[in-house]
């Protein structure tokens, strides 16, 4: 993006983009803007400074990374970040997917103070409803949807875990139809309208195919809808920790553990097969770098436990799961980005309706 020098806040910055998209996007092959949301914690700015060339444009920070383009040449990739809200940063860019993969993804990959913002499946449905109710004639040209039992009943074989990708100009009707028939709800949608074309997905990425005020308005309206739940998730993740407290009840100093665990409640009973395919899925994923060791698994009702390492950040936590829930017991360097990313993996690959909360010791029913 070519942004004239100046001092901006996030709103002014967006205005510059949609007021003069021709000059901002000049020279970019794809005439679109992508927006990524990141949960953040103190120190994220320093982290950015350490890894990128940065420049302050008022409340907006420009950061430049390098990537290798398809012809093998090194090229700069430009990104702009501004605070949408405390602990929530918005990154805007016009770079290609390849540049984003090489230069932007590492921004959070190894950081203890930044993680991609996930959107819970339920919030995503609300976002969709907002768009559709605001625009009667909004078309859906493409979507991906998956089975989430708590959000939709299915007429046809409700037990089947399914994922449907659809392309066609009549997506809006098909979305409802598939939902009723197969109980699937969307996790990625491409909207088309006279003036607006935008694409949203549950990993917190928004693609504005049309760069105008209307697209930005939609983006901000949708964000305001999910922000409460997302910040609550951050709060939960921040509280999951392992500490040793020193006490001196007698004449010796003793360490006692203070563990605050997390719990992911499943929306539907999880089977061993699903748990195994989740592990495989995280292994094969390009985005995730979790490894599972010390795995104990037994079929019947699910008895599954493992030590999980976030290889990028070196954090460690243990998980143990029953059919209903998965407990997360933090061990080492367990910062919120590892936990948020793990939760995102769970809702994307294991159970779209799963909720993460703090574990409270409870007497079982």
């Amino acid at each position, binding site marked *: 993006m070519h942004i004239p020098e100046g001092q901006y806040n996030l709103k002014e910055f967006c205005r510059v983009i949609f007021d003069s998209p021709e000059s901002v996007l000049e020279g970019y092959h794809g005439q679109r803007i992508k927006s990524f949301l990141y949960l953040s914690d103190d120190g994220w700015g320093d982290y950015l400074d350490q890894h990128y060339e940065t420049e302050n444009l008022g409340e907006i920070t420009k950061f430049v990374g390098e990537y290798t383009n398809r012809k093998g040449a090194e090229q700069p990739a430009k990104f702009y970040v501004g605070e949408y809200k405390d602990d929530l940063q918005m990154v805007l860019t016009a770079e290609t997917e390849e540049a984003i993969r090489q230069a932007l993804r590492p921004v959070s990959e190894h950081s203890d103070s930044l993680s991609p913002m996930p959107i819970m499946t339920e919030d995503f449905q609300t976002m969709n409803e907002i768009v559709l109710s605001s625009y009667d004639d909004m078309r859906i040209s493409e979507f991906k949807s998956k089975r989430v039992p708590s959000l939709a009943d299915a007429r046809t074989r409700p037990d089947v875990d399914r994922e449907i990708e659809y392309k066609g100009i009549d997506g809006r009707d098909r979305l409802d139809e598939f939902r009723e028939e197969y109980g699937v709800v969307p996790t990625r949608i491409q909207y088309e309208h006279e003036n607006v074309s935008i694409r949203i997905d549950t990993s917190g990425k928004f693609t504005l195919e049309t760069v105008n005020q209307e697209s930005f308005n939609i983006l901000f309206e949708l964000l305001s809808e999910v922000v409460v739940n997302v910040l609550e998730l951050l709060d939960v993740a921040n509280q999951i920790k392992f500490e040793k407290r020193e006490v001196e009840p007698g004449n010796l100093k003793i360490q006692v*553990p203070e563990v605050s665990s997390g719990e992911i409640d499943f929306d539907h009973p999880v089977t061993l097969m699903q748990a195994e395919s989740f592990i495989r899925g995280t292994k094969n994923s390009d985005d995730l770098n979790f490894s599972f060791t010390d795995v104990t698994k*037994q079929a019947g009702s699910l008895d599954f436990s493992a030590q999980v390492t976030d290889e990028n950040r070196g954090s460690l936590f243990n998980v*143990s799961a029953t059919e209903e829930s998965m407990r997360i017991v933090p061990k080492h360097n367990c910062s919120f980005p590892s936990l948020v990313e793990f939760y995102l993996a769970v809702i994307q690959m294991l159970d779209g309706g799963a909720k993460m909360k703090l574990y409270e010791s409870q*007497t079982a029913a």
Partner: protein
Amino acid sequence: MTNVDPPESVPEGQETKYRGLYGKCVHHKRQEFPEQSKREILREEIDVQRHHRKLISYSIFPFAQGNPAGYKFITAEPLEELDVPNFDFLLWNLDGSVIFGEAKSSIPDSAATVVNQLQERKEVAENHKEYIEQEYLGSDINHMEFVVSTYVNHGDKIAKEIIESGVEFITWVVDAHSDTLWIRQARPRSFPGNLESDDPDAMLEELDRRHTHDISSLNSELDRVTTSFGQADVLPTSIIVDRLRVVVQSRRVEDRYPCVDRDDIQEYVSNSALNYTEERISEIVDELIESGKRLNFLSEWDDDRAELKIVSNYTAKDDLERALENKWVDWRIEGMKEQLRDECEERIVAELGKQSQLDDF
């Protein structure tokens, strides 16, 4: 086998004969050696260890996450440094009450042997009361209780045996399928023969008294409480392959080489172990590194990137644990074969000895 050096006890001139007989013996023993089934047994051993560690973990989790009736988890394997029979975990309410706990992931048919073992450990702990006060707690113990924790399917067997033998142990059971821990559920389903009363209500009361804690709030807080796997990483007396998981956990990857510094291991161990002294942690780390080298799982790395390299064909993260297990199994099998060779050596030497004595006549 001809290049084998006969031991010195083999009389001069008998070397060739020794080599021949020895070669035959080794060949024969090797053919008979049930390698496959031995490997399977070793794999089971790893599994048993994992279940044992997991059970300890489940048993102490409520005391790491919270503090039922004021009790906190203090340390795994108290007294292990003294080389005496020890318990798996120690809980303390920071006041005057302690609980020693032993985890048994399975109970043999003759549950009496387990009870005897428990009894022995209990005596050891009681004899070391002062030592524990001085070295572990820094204050006096005025109440001691003992717990055996087991998986739910073994609970009845051991609880019954404990109550019949009159040993004072409280049984906890863990249901890993539902991640819960129970106390009252572990009550035996039939009355043992040694209850003093004949009145069923009184019998029940007595039974309850024997297998629940003196502090009633502990009983209610712990009964059917949800629990989890996650604590108890470092157990100094478990089998080495289980302990070496620590190395897998603390390793890092440099240019696709899994490697580790002594400091990495030290940090992991000291973060995972509660209330071990610095010296003890250093010893544990030394032992880990030495054993790792012995298994050819670790080797010195003459490189700036790290002190030690993990020897593995895998660079992939998850397979290091499998590589470790394979190496340990190979190493144990090699040890067994070594023993076959020693047995042959001994036998042939003895045989040659007899023959030479015959020749003397």
